[in-house]
């Protein structure tokens, strides 16, 4: 069914070819940089770079559009909240105040505030595509193998992989249950008032939990019957050896990390200040 989102998308692309470990490490580097820096130049570079990677990965925008929109919605709320609670944050950071529009008291819009919020937005834009890309281009089993290789216990790795694997299943179940409950007259659409809708949602979630619990019991039995958890170590059928491309990518990302950190911190400030 066409409702699967955030599940592995099989393609032939250089991004898919990388081992799970490489992608995981790169993703961690990427997030670290994006979290540490507020330097607009670095952020802009990262943003453009992630768009390039996205194109290389051959994942279509359409396939991840829903999640993307969902996150953008939260981004908007976040931006509004920053403005409401701290409208002069930019002035504090950059130390100058260029007034753009005069509004009563502290809600005066300044270029500094706008610039600051653009930076925050850019941070989102650098991390989100990377995160989505990581999830949709990494085969869950291979991902588990990677986690295990960087030292995470294989039980936890497998649990994560199974969770990723069951995302499409649960989405499918959710849809079936929602439809059949709708057929009994449970309205989830906007015609119903909000408290009522929340109550109605319970009538979908309870069967979803119950049928998921059934599945969990079945799969844990099946795993145990085939010897899962017997030894301290296990091997992975899908494990892939490092290739040249992996090493090159890791070097590239380490360089990006170092350069961005240098550019960000060489003047002793996380922020790039165009106003001084």
């Amino acid at each position, binding site marked *: *069914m*066409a409702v699967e989102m955030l599940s*592995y998308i099989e393609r032939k692309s250089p991004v898919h070819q990388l081992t799970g470990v490489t992608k995981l490490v790169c993703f961690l580097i990427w997030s670290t940089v994006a979290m540490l820096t507020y330097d607009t130049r670095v952020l802009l570079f990262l943003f453009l770079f992630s768009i390039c990677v996205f194109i290389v990965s051959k994942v279509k925008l359409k396939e991840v559009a829903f999640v993307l929109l969902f996150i953008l919605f939260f981004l908007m709320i976040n931006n509004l909240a920053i403005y409401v609670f701290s409208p002069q944050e930019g002035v504090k950071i950059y130390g100058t105040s260029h007034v753009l529009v005069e509004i009563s008291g502290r809600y005066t819009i300044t270029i500094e505030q706008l610039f600051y919020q653009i930076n925050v937005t850019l941070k989102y834009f650098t991390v989100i595509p990377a995160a989505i890309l990581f999830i949709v281009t990494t*085969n*869950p*089993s291979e991902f588990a193998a990677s986690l295990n290789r960087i030292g995470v216990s294989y039980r936890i790795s497998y649990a994560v992989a*199974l969770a990723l*694997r069951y995302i499409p299943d649960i989405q499918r*179940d959710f849809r*079936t*249950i929602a*439809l*059949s*409950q*709708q*057929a*009994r*007259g*449970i*309205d989830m659409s906007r015609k119903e008032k909000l408290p009522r809708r929340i109550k*109605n949602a*319970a*009538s*979908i979630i*309870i*069967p979803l939990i*119950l*049928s998921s619990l*059934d*599945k969990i019991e*079945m*799969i*844990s*039995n*099946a*795993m*145990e*019957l*085939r*010897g*899962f*958890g*017997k*030894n301290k*170590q*296990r*091997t*992975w*059928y*899908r*494990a892939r050896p490092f290739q040249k491309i992996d090493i090159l990518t890791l070097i590239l990302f380490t360089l990006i990390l170092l350069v961005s950190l240098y550019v960000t911190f060489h003047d002793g400030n996380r922020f790039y200040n165009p106003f001084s």
Partner: protein
Amino acid sequence: MKKPVIQFENYSFQYRSQTAPTLHEINLTIYEGEKVLIIGPSGSGKSTLGHCLNGLVPFSYKGEVSGSLKISGENTKNLDIFSLSKKVGTVLQDPDGQFIGLTVAEDIAFALENDGAPQTQMFAKVAEVSKMVDMADYLDSSLHQLSGGQKQRVSLAGVMVDDVEILLFDEPLANLDPATGKYAIELIDRIQKETNKTVVIIEHRLEDVLHCHVDRIIVVDDGRIIADMTPDELLASPILEQCSIREPLYVKAVKYAGCEITPEMQPAHIESFQVDGCKDQLANWFRKADASIPKQKSESILELKDITFGYTTGKKTIQGVSFSIEKGEMVSIVGKNGAGKSTLSKLICGFEKPNAGRIYYRGKDISEDTIKERAARIGMVMQNPNQMISKQMIYEEVALGLVIRGVPEAEIKERVLKTLKICGLYPFRNWPISALSFGQKKRVTIASILVLEPEIIILDEPTAGQDFRHYSEIMEFLAELNRHGVTIIMITHDMHLMLEYTPRAVVIAGGRKIADDTAVNVLADSQIIKEANLKETSLFELAIRSGIGEPKEFVRRFIAYDREVRQQWQ
């Protein structure tokens, strides 16, 4: 003397949550290289017996064990579930739920991974085993894309990588269409012959398992072994009838005709069955049995016209399907797994919108109606009751649809209680749903739809996973509803259900309607049987072999007679 591999001695088991033991004083020995079938009604303890073999009892399902169980000479008390899994390989009932890997190869390799086998060894072993079960060409396929039969072959391969001594099959036929089930039984037979492993099959569909040779049948009822004999001896005895397991239809027919069955007649397989001595009695019975009543025409209640649909553009799941259902009919929609049967029901209920074609209800076009509007006329009962139940108490669950529709309290009470009575749930009205059995939960879901008073009810596999007694109960209940005027459409791949309860069958294959005829005629057409993965009923063969000229009529009369007999022991 052969070497014993499984030895139960005075073995009893009681689940921690239960007040009485599930297994009493089991004494059973199974020898190396034997092929044994364990049958019994639901709740008889046959699955628990299987769990004892693979170690789920007592390692996952805790409880109290007494007596001893030895597997290849070793007492299971001294083993753990992992060393047991090296001796006993289990193929579980529902292949969908037990897949762990994403692709065929990964799933087959799972046990090897847990052993820490090096990758090159895994590749070699997976290639070898997948060849054995004819899945070598699908190693990189995603498990979701496989057919039911292929999935089962993958789970078989997954336990065979371990070089187990015993292969245990827990209800291998439960989710397969008839033809696939037949291949599954043939595959088990072939693997057993090639590898000389000990095979234990737990199943209640006796006739289907007997498609291939079985050394011994063990009958379990009420936690005890009540028979342990060859198939020929068992079929000649009255034991099956006593514990309500469905006998092979050809055996049943001969019994109805008044013949006595002896082991010498070799009743285990229709091919070997010596019917010559019964020819006269069968012919006699055939003359006397009632012919079925011709059905009356009534108005059309639901009509599909040229329905075409695909989940993704370009790939059509349903192609130009048209049919009309009359008021008060009981129709089955049959076809192999993945043929588009369930999709068709979703289209009728409005869960999906057809790309082309119209749907009419009593001559009125309802193609544009919403799910909710259609639900007032057409109710849908899903296969898994857990996917529908959202309240804790039976009364609340059945009342839910009415409460939401804002029906006055007094009327709700009246309608719910009336429905509960019809469904035989009235005594349980104040029970929590969690205390019910699977079959009873199914009834609750039917009741929760019925209370909305739809004129048509669609049921997806209403009897999946039910033993013969529950099957008869549910189906008789539906037949009763049908007599009250409710039109019933069933989606199924159960040949017995279609033959016994629905006069008419619509056959879907590859998204197209390939037949729309009486159930008996459908099962008499070898072309349709082949295309839709159905299976011919053994009654035809019996009729032909005993010289009855009209096999179809013979089947029809048998069904009518059989239902009358069964209604008496309801």
